């Protein structure tokens, strides 16, 4: 167990180091000078040099990599070139939007997908199944930003039930904050829920074909009991994989939706920072997202073991 955990931790660490090298040196060659971006068209050469020195940009990339990577280890993400505030602070602020949004969307996804997937699997080939499969087929195909536009048109501009975007901040209260995240969460959740519904359904149907289902039926369990007691838990493995991927996607991939709803999240921070050539922010956010993905993958591995005793330590 210990050896496995150590091995896992080591490989996780190596992945992160590799990722940090990729991120840093890929973005190192980004054309554009943050100092020039800040000072604009009338800046004079000496002013630019002064600013570059102030930002530490006059040093070599290797030195800067070690500064940055060393800082990451200490939890110090450096100082933003353009905002001149600690990057950690900026990321923390944005994370308070992106993370709740991802969780909200994930909750919606699960709330939709589980009943729908179970209903479809239970009534395989019947009208319910066909309807759910048809709707999910559309749900997967609809581009989420387009769906978001339609939501804004319907619920913000026309009905005025929700504000069209923006985020009042958690200090405005949980209610208003959640309300502001509702439309984006729906826009994110619909395609994800469609995917998860289909995955759950096919996993359930596959599981329902297993021998132990037959054994359970021979014990006198009804179809419904078999579905709930036996099929669902066994179908969770592929479903967990997808949920893990979806969470990573929701956290990192909400960039477009954050733009549509002008939410101050991590995705928009990346775009904005690239525009301003605030590369240190871009690097740190990308690293954080990559770390999140790797961590989620690891957690999903652990969740497998919780679901499937075969993956647990033998007694």
């Amino acid at each position: 167990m210990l050896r496995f955990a150590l091995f896992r931790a080591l490989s996780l660490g190596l992945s992160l180091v590799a990722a940090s090298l990729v991120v840093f040196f890929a973005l190192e060659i980004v054309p554009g000078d943050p100092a020039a971006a800040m000072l604009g068209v009338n800046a004079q050469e000496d002013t630019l040099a002064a600013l570059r020195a102030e930002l530490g940009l006059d040093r070599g990339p290797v030195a800067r990599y070690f500064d940055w990577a060393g800082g990451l280890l200490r939890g110090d993400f450096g100082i933003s070139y353009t905002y001149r505030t600690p990057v950690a602070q900026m990321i923390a602020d944005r994370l308070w939007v992106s993370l709740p949004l991802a969780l909200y969307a994930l909750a919606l996804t699960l709330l939709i997908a589980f009943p729908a997937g179970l209903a479809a699997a239970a009534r395989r080939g019947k009208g319910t199944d066909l309807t759910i499969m048809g709707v999910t087929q559309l749900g997967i195909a609809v581009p989420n930003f387009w769906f978001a536009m339609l939501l804004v048109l319907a619920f913000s501009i026309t009905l005025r039930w929700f504000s069209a975007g923006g985020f009042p901040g958690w200090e405005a209260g949980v209610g208003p904050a959640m309300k502001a995240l509702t439309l984006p969460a729906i826009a994110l959740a619909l395609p994800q829920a469609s995917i998860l519904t289909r995955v759950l359904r096919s996993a359930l149907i596959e599981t329902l074909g297993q021998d132990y289902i037959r054994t359970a039926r021979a014990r006198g369990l009804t179809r419904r009991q078999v579905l709930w007691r036996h099929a669902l838990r066994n179908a969770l493995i592929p479903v967990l994989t997808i949920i893990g991927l979806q969470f990573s996607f929701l956290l990192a991939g909400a960039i477009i939706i954050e733009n549509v709803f002008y939410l101050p999240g991590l995705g928009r921070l990346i775009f904005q920072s690239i525009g301003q050539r605030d590369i240190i922010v871009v690097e740190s956010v990308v690293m954080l997202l990559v770390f999140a993905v790797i961590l989620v993958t690891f957690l999903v591995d652990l969740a497998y073991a919780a679901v499937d005793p075969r993956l647990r330590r033998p007694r």
Partner: protein
Amino acid sequence: MSSDRTRLAGGTALLVAGLALAQAAFAQRTDIVVGMGLEPPHLDPTTAAAAAIDEVVYANLFEGLTRFAPDGSIQPALAESWDISEDGTVYTFRLHEGVTFHDGSTLDAQDVKFSLDRARSEDSTNAQKGLFAGIEDVTVVDPLTVQITLDQPDGGFLFSMAWGDAVIVAEETADAAKTAPVGTGPFRFENWVQGDRIELVKYPDYWGDPVALDRAVFKFISDSTAAFAAMMAGDVDTFPIFPAPENLAQFEADPRFRVIVGSTEGETILSTNNKQPPFDDPKVRQALAHAIDRQAVIDGAMFGYGTPIGTHFAPHHPAYLDLKATSAHDPDKARALLAEAGYADGFTTTLKLPPPSYARRGGEIIAAQLREVGIETEITNVEWAQWLEQVFRGKDFGLTIVSHTEPMDIGIYANPDYYFQYDNPDFQSLMDALRAEADPEARTALLQQAQTIIAEDFVNGYLFQLAKSGVADARIEGLWENAPTQANDLTGVRWTE
């Protein structure tokens, strides 16, 4: 202050504001939410060029010795009055009495000296350091009097001192100005939720006329659709520079809103690399000029908002000369000129477009118009940072579209190193003459001569003067109509019902 405390304080303030709002449900509103496309990187106007900084702090939070009035004229601000020496090189400013910074400290001549010295010092990171280049010396005469000596007469010095980059800061707080700006204006900084908004509140001890608003929120919405939705949904009260002109008609049709269309100092031009063949040939540049249908660009890209121009000069300026006829739309003539220049089969060049929609949309239209006369363009959309790097500094471009928003900036044509690389000694000496000339009529003549030279040299393709097209709740008054500088001056703004 840690951000948690900031947030807490902000929360409390918001709560208080909310209660106040509830109590005064039928009373006048005293808060405003101003929409802006870009978020400022930080809030120190003296160390960055970003227009967004001035759009938040200019006249609201920071003030200079002089200021721009809504009509573009120069008015006294912190300086109550001034004297100019006979030879035009010594300016003596008399400061208002009782001006305090938001931290309670008093403004005196020492602060003015500090601010100006800081801006022109060796390690200054002031983006408009040129404004201060002529200053030879700043002396404190007494706490309310400061004397500035120039190395030569400068007709535009008062104008320079009105820029946002020339605002007065106190030595103790100057370094913290990026995140905790302390100025002398009618509003003080309260909170910044990065990525979303900046909040200012009324400064009760303001020296000047008290303002009507208690609270101003600048909300950053970069996406045009979101901007439209936010206005429509009432999340934002005014969008002084509305990013999508196509939506203005809808706002106009809606009695809840008022569309405010004014002019800006932004000459929008098809900037041409005068050193890069074939644009080093005046005939090619002339062909380019005749190939462009300005009105189609204005209609297509700006939905009709914008004034066509024939030279690099603001049409609302008294010295403006209408030279549009010089470069009238005439594709046949353009083709003929190209053939004369040896490009009968046309040629291919690059067209680099920065983010604003005037550039992106205008670029597509111009590309189509150039294609009509045989010029193929490879369009590249670039971010501002890349534009600065590649186009402005690297001069690696054939064509680009950009709006030059600095007021009275025809002088850039006298700089042969400027990115479009126009090098005309006649024009350069004309500018030297203008600089030394104080007589208004003589200045007008010189300016008109300058306009004619660059128009007839077809330095760039002159497209239109960028309109300042804003939207506001119909009940708001006192917003600037024109934009002599980049600012959202809220000092005169009030709700009417």
